[in-house]
């Protein structure tokens, strides 16, 4: 069984909306470092923060986060 990894398109979605990490951090109420570490897939956000990010970016959670690898 392969390892399942949580990947994200946060940077692409944020850039498409012309937002800086600072803008998104303030909008989601977290630190810039948190946004940075999520984008670099170092930090896995909670469901609450994932939903909050989707809300402020006006998209679905699945548009931002997806699973890679694993066997079904």
């Amino acid at each position, binding site marked *: 069984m392969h390892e399942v990894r949580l990947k994200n398109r946060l940077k692409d979605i944020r850039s498409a*909306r*012309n*937002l*800086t990490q*600072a*803008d998104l*951090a*303030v*909008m989601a*109420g*977290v*630190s*810039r*470092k*948190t946004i*940075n*570490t999520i984008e670099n897939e170092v*930090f896995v*956000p*909670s469901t*609450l*923060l994932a939903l909050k990010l989707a*809300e*402020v*970016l*006006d998209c679905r959670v699945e548009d931002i986060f997806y699973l890679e690898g694993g066997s079904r």
Partner: protein
Amino acid sequence: MGYISKATDVDNEKRIEQAERQRLWRRLLLAINGVAYFAWIGSQGLNQTGLLGWSPQEWSLIQTLSWPIWAISLGGVFVQMAWLRRNRQVTRLIDDERTAHVTRYAYQGGYWGLLLAVAAVYAATFFTQVDARVVLPLLLATGVTLNSFIYAWLYRG
């Protein structure tokens, strides 16, 4: 895109700058607090060992100098906490879920560090006589300092 407001760009940058300044202060205060605590309490144990060849007066001077530094840095931590309580917008940019994650790591690191230190002292009792006046201040200082250092290290960036 109803939630996205471009008008807040300048405010956002300003808030983030404030948050990062506070974050730097927090790390600095914790690091100073940890070093000063180790110098104050830990030196009371090291004083008994004759390590480094320092005289009791020199150890006493270190203790005399380090405890006010510890007290001032602790005061700084409280002042910052009070400031952050009044500035909620900045606080949420500092104390988010990643901070909670870092705090958990710091406590776990401190726990394992202290456990290893106690195990090392226990192992030493098989080979030599261990003086409680030496090891207890060192264990106490290790337990406190390690948490501060791990937090300050993980909280960088």
